[in-house]
């Protein structure tokens, strides 16, 4: 009877995981989905404890409760206190904890199952994968954290890593094959797995960390699933597999979004490409943003100002920008255009374009009128403008544009700059704005990326 109810609860918990993940993939339901899955998790944990058959000493209960309470408090506080920008590294940290948990289970359970080759396979697989996930996640965390700054690469690290990976397989297979119960072999395998995790992540550049974390995440899922197989525990199995498969797909999707082939992801060598874009320039590094992330930022803003420049004209993006305005206005976002007196290449260049796409005259604001408004603005979207938003005009007396009044886009909460490259504008000078903290670059032809942005916005509804 008890066991029946236990199964029902496990089943329900598995379903909450599926539903939760499903809901997480839609902006509107995401929050509830997370809560739902959390609810299922709590139920599963309680079930595991309550429905256990056979006598268990109070000490053990005490230890379990203690660990749970401590884990809850620490986890909760860390998660609550972290700054928005540090969240990805925290995810990596937590992921590592999960991996470690799986690895420890393997370490302990090994003895009980010596000889049963199926169980040994499952245990070793869970332990190795958990360990890799743990050590890898810790490296990823340290990198995001800034504790490890550069991509550290051993010579021929690709071949080395592949060799280690093969050895891990072979060693594990050998242990199962011989049925040896030797602690030594177990721990050597454990350490080797930890080592592989470290070597796996070390050479990878910072820009690729999200992909790596997602991959390690699906590893931990797999480790959990092996645990489920071992205990014949359905909720672990389903939860683990679910995360394993969803995580793998997510990794692929992210790779695709970053234009990086899967092969490079698995066999090291990542990060080389984007890093050069992402961290170039004498003045520091620029932050990139994609149309989809920008879509959310815009969708959830109250006030957006669009700053058009010559690039809008070159790209002939006037019709798309109008479409963007229409969609945002429909979603209740206030949109205006800040027209700099010398934006473009002729007086009134922007007016001609925007009139063509029927932007209302009332929405076009002159520089003096709009400059005070930037500070109440959530997002400024600079489209193909450069000189007219260059702070050098205010700060740098040696600059050829010094003394020219500019649009104070820096005062806004966030500033997105769309252009095709880091090239200079008409005046031929670098623009410090692009390197500022609040600035994010949206690279690409204005018409192309704004069309993508509009598509993403439509998908958000």
């Amino acid at each position: 009877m008890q066991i029946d109810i236990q199964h029902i609860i496990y089943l329900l918990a598995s379903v909450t995981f599926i539903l939760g993940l499903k809901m997480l993939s839609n902006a509107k339901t995401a929050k509830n989905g997370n809560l739902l899955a959390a609810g299922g998790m709590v139920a599963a944990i309680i079930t595991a404890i309550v429905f256990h058959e056979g006598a268990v000493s109070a000490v053990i209960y005490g230890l379990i409760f203690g660990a749970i309470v401590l884990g809850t408090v620490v986890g909760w506080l860390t998660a609550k206190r972290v700054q928005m920008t540090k969240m990805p590294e925290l995810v990596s940290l937590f992921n590592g904890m999960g991996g470690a948990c799986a690895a420890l289970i393997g370490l302990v359970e090994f003895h009980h199952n010596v000889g049963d080759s199926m169980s040994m396979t499952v245990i070793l697989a869970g332990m190795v994968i958990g360990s890799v996930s743990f050590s890898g996640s810790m490296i990823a965390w340290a990198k995001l954290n800034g504790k490890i700054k550069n991509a550290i690469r051993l010579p021929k690290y690709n071949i080395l890593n592949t060799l280690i990976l093969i050895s891990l397989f072979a060693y594990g297979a050998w242990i199962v094959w011989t049925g040896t119960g030797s602690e030594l072999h177990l721990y050597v395998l454990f350490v080797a797995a930890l080592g592989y995790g470290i070597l796996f992540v070390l050479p990878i550049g910072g820009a690729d960390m999200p992909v790596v974390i997602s991959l390690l995440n699906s590893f931990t899922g797999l480790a959990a699933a092996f645990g489920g197989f071992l205990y014949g525990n359905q909720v672990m199995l389903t939860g683990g597999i679910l995360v394993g498969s969803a995580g793998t797909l997510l990794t692929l999707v992210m790779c695709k979004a970053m234009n990086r082939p899967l092969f490079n992801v698995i066999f090291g060598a990542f990060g080389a490409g984007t890093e050069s874009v992402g961290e170039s320039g004498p003045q520091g590094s620029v932050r990139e943003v994609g149309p989809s992330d920008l879509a959310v930022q815009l969708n959830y803003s109250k006030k957006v100002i669009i700053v058009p420049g010559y690039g809008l004209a070159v790209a002939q993006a006037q019709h798309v920008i109008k479409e963007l305005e229409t969609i945002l206005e429909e979603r209740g976002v206030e949109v205006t255009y800040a027209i700099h007196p010398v934006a473009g290449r002729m007086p009134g260049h922007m007016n001609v374009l925007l009139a063509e796409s029927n932007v209302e005259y009332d929405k076009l604001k002159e520089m003096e009128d709009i400059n005070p408004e930037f500070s109440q603005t959530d997002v400024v979207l600079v489209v193909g403008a450069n000189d007219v938003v260059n702070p050098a005009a205010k700060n740098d007396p040696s600059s050829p544009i010094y003394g020219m009044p500019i649009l104070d886009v820096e005062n806004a909460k966030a500033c997105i700059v769309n252009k095709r490259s880091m090239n200079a504008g008409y005046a031929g000078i670098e623009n410090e704005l692009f390197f500022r903290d609040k600035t994010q670059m949206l690279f690409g032809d204005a018409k192309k990326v704004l069309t993508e942005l509009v598509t993403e916005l439509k998908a958000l509804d």
Partner: protein
Amino acid sequence: MKLSVLKETDKGETRVAIVPKSISKLKGLGFEVVIETNAGSNAAFTDEEYIKAGATIATSSSEAIDSADVVVKINPPTPEDIALLSEGQILISQLFHLLRPEITDALKSKGVKGLSLDAMPRISRAQSMDILSSQSNLSGYKAVICGADNLGKIFPMLTTAAGTITPARVLIFGVGVAGLQAIATAKRLGAIVEATDVRPECKEQAESLGAKFLTVEGEGVLVEGGYAKEVSQEYLLKQKEVVNKSLSQADLVITTALVQGAKSPILISQEQIEMMKNGSVIVDMAVAKGGNTALSKADETVIHNGVKIVGISNFPAQIPTNASELLSRNIDTFLSHMVSEDSFKWDMEDEITIGTLVTK
């Protein structure tokens, strides 16, 4: 059959009734085409072009009219023209038979068959022969160009280093063929356009071209077959109220309001002109029929209180090339409707024939 095209003699007229492009079509209908020399020169069609197209040149109007079966021109025949015409000839031109019955009478007494182009019934299948439409359309465009040329301001909004130029405000009275083209043209140039008309369906039409429509909620308008027939005094008062704010802000006003078979209504009184901005311009397209403002004078520019009132009675003559092309196409389509197997059909069941044949 011999078809002769006369050179227009009216003052300021630059158009020609038939352009070289139409000649092959006319020949296909069985006409031998004669053109009075220099008939097209003001519209940029040379005698050589006509000859190349297959016409022959007549050195004078008498030579052209003599022995012609059909005589074609745009404006009503002058007394001299009438004197040259003889019995059995067919004259195609505007005849204004309701307004100027003396012309029709003279033709009748001479035994000349008069086909009046301005009497074309405004039915769907006659649209391609309707010179009023084709010419009003061009006039609507030209009136805006003329207004833009007379205005001390530019139309579009421009944000420049030397400050922002606000867009010009254009107000259009009468959303018929000319009014719609005027809306489109002013809008293209970047102006803020408002328009008003007595016919309520004009709202949607004006809006379809980007103008704001000023609706006058008044009684006393009689609309017949799509044309404003009669507009009461109360309505005009109501209209003044509605438009006065726009009028006082307008940089350019274009009036096109006509009432069929009557003098055009006065839509802007002297007081209203006096409330307009210094430097603003009115282009009165109805001036040939009396004008839509209290002060308009045909073919004159009146300046009152800083407001320029430009009255141009013949706008199409200012775009002679295109205007002649359309006219010529109207006329050749008309002729191909009237003629079959090298002779006129005189189908007296046909609405178009009945409508245009004003002297038999």
